[in-house]
């Protein structure tokens, strides 16, 4: 209440002292700060923007030279009653404003978050600095924290169904490049989602729409993008296949891990195996797969033989799994590989008689052996147990066959 009261008293005072002398002059910043340059005495709950302007901060902001009334254009004189309108940034920033009007963030109105939308990201309206200034909330190194105010807030995520991805991003290879290495070139939110025109990944015009992802990632990873389009996956995408995997299918969206680490290297089930289920299952039956399942990147994983971004079918002579290249592919790990060695089946299926009859019959034999031994001795053991249990409980002289007491 104090603020409201002092505002009114101030208005009256200023009006009495100077109204007659200055009524015809346009307002200057100096005039405005007569009232607006005092520190607030209590938190202002009612106004989204502080009534009190740090004049020094404002002078150093990008808008400093413009004074107050370019933005607050409806304030012609004081006292300015009724209350001035919200500032319309789009008067000058029409391009970003148009982009923003198409973005998912216009949903703010529907959510009754009544803040002027621009300020949510750009911060204090009287202290807006260029995005290249480290003090800016949209400076690349600050941007994830700015977006994370909503997209890292579990309550908001739950209430409005928005993506809670800050923690995933900050724990990713891109997040580390930004937080640990301090790289301005590290991908942050806007690198993939755009700045003002953030649209749903379901929108075909979105940078994060499925078929646009290779180009989006390729804006930094250009070499990988070229390799990807050389391989079967990229070719299938180009041919219009909706099932063709794109970068994010293997690397995930926000939680992109450093690929050299064992946790990433030993997860073929969540990368290639997501689509190639049968190939994954048969791989897991090999020693390669067993070692990998233990979380150790010491035996061949999918990409050790197939490559990663340029994956080619065995019919392509350039493929690492083309028959004529297998000796050198296997030879990456195994010394002394011969032509006979490469008839090893890296995806064996003992249930598939056509693939390898010897393996099939070996599996049948082993299953029958196990079944036979345990059926016979299981029965034998149970009958024996019943018989001796009975002897023991009847205190027979025949029990326990002379065991020393």
């Amino acid at each position, binding site marked *: 209440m104090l603020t409201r009261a002092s505002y009114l008293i101030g208005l009256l005072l200023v009006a009495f002292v100077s109204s007659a002398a200055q009524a015809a002059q346009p307002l200057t910043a100096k005039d405005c700060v007569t009232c607006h340059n005092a520190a607030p005495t209590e938190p202002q709950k009612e106004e989204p923007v502080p009534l009190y302007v740090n004049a020094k901060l404002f002078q150093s902001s990008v808008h400093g030279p413009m004074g107050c009334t370019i933005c607050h254009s409806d304030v012609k004189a004081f006292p300015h009653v009724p209350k001035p309108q919200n500032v319309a940034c789009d008067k000058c920033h029409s391009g970003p404003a148009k982009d923003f009007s198409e973005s998912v963030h216009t949903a703010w109105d529907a959510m009754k978050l009544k803040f002027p939308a621009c300020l949510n990201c750009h911060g204090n309206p009287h202290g807006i600095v260029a995005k290249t200034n480290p003090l800016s909330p949209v400076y690349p190194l600050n941007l994830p924290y700015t977006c994370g105010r909503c997209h890292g807030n579990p309550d908001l995520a739950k209430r409005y169904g928005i993506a809670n991805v800050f923690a995933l991003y900050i724990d990713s290879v891109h997040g580390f490049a930004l937080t640990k290495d301090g790289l301005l070139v590290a991908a942050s939110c806007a690198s993939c989602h755009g700045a003002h025109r953030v649209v749903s990944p379901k929108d075909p015009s979105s940078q994060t729409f499925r078929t646009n992802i290779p180009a989006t990632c390729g804006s930094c990873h250009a070499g990988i993008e070229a390799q990807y389009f050389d391989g079967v996956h990229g070719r299938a995408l180009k041919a219009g296949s909706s099932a063709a995997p794109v970068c994010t299918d293997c690397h995930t969206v926000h939680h992109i891990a450093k690929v050299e680490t064992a946790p990433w290297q030993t997860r073929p089930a969540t990368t290639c195996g997501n689509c190639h289920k049968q190939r994954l299952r048969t791989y897991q039956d090999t020693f390669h*797969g*067993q070692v990998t399942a233990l979380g150790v990147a010491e035996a061949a994983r999918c990409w050790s033989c197939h490559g990663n971004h340029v994956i080619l079918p065995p019919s392509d002579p350039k493929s690492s799994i083309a028959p004529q290249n297998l000796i050198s592919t296997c030879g990456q790990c195994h010394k002394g590989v011969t032509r006979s060695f490469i008839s090893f089946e890296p995806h064996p299926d003992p249930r598939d008689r056509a693939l390898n009859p010897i393996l099939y019959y070996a599996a049948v034999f082993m299953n029958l052996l*196990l079944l036979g031994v345990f059926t016979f001795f299981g029965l034998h053991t149970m009958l024996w147990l019943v018989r001796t249990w009975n002897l023991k409980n009847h205190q027979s002289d025949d029990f326990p066959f*002379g065991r020393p007491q």
Partner: protein
Amino acid sequence: MNAEKPTTVYYFRFSLGQRYLHGVLIVIFLGLAATGMTLRFSDTPWAQAVSDAIGFRAVLFFHKFCAVVLTGGFLLHLCDVFYRGLLRGQTNILYGPDSLVPRPQDLIDLYEHVRWFLWLGPRPRFSRFTYWEKFDYWAVFWGMAIIGISGYMIWFAPFFARFVPGYGMNVALLVHGEEGLLAVWFIFIIHFFNTHLRPEKFPLDAVIITGRLSGDELRHERPIEYESLVEHDGLKSIETGAPPRWLMNFAGIIAVLAIGVGFILVFVTLTAFFAGA
């Protein structure tokens, strides 16, 4: 029960060398089973915990180390059989009632034993080795040969690929894993019960550790051998006293450890096998 002081007289059944060899077999088999099952069921949380705890390289190293030691033990045993059976002319270990080599009588014993299980006849009179002991022996013998050869094939795959096609390693891994599973379950369930856990022997038959069994046991459990020893005046030379207390305690500790580790392995492998199947 016999009138003569039955529980004080003991007879040697196994030589010191045989007992040491079985001791090595216990330790090595436990080591091979624990490390091998970790690889066989590598997609289970317990296998990953073992691998994380001691390191994958350690798991593989111990598996191969134990394999080499067991190969040595196996060859030593073959040399011993060859030396005693052929060079020293102890042909009774190669055939006849004292031998581990199966003979038709074993089938008759099995038939009569099952009849006894079903209250249909008297308990059969066994010789030095019963049919289930022979099965134990030959199962391990066959198992060591098969698992050993297939294991070395996987270990030295490029070398063996000179003699067998590369897909032979697929077969080798399959056989190695299944035969290993068979061995683990057989030893830790069937062998443990037949030899140690059945009510007459519970909690363990210490004969393989102490090397000796009581006169009562010999007379009741292996009457044919006993009668043959009496007839050939062989009892005096193998007579001994009761095993010392420390040896019995030692046997108890070994048994608790082996049965404990064995049952844990049986539990985790059975659950993993049936969860995966």
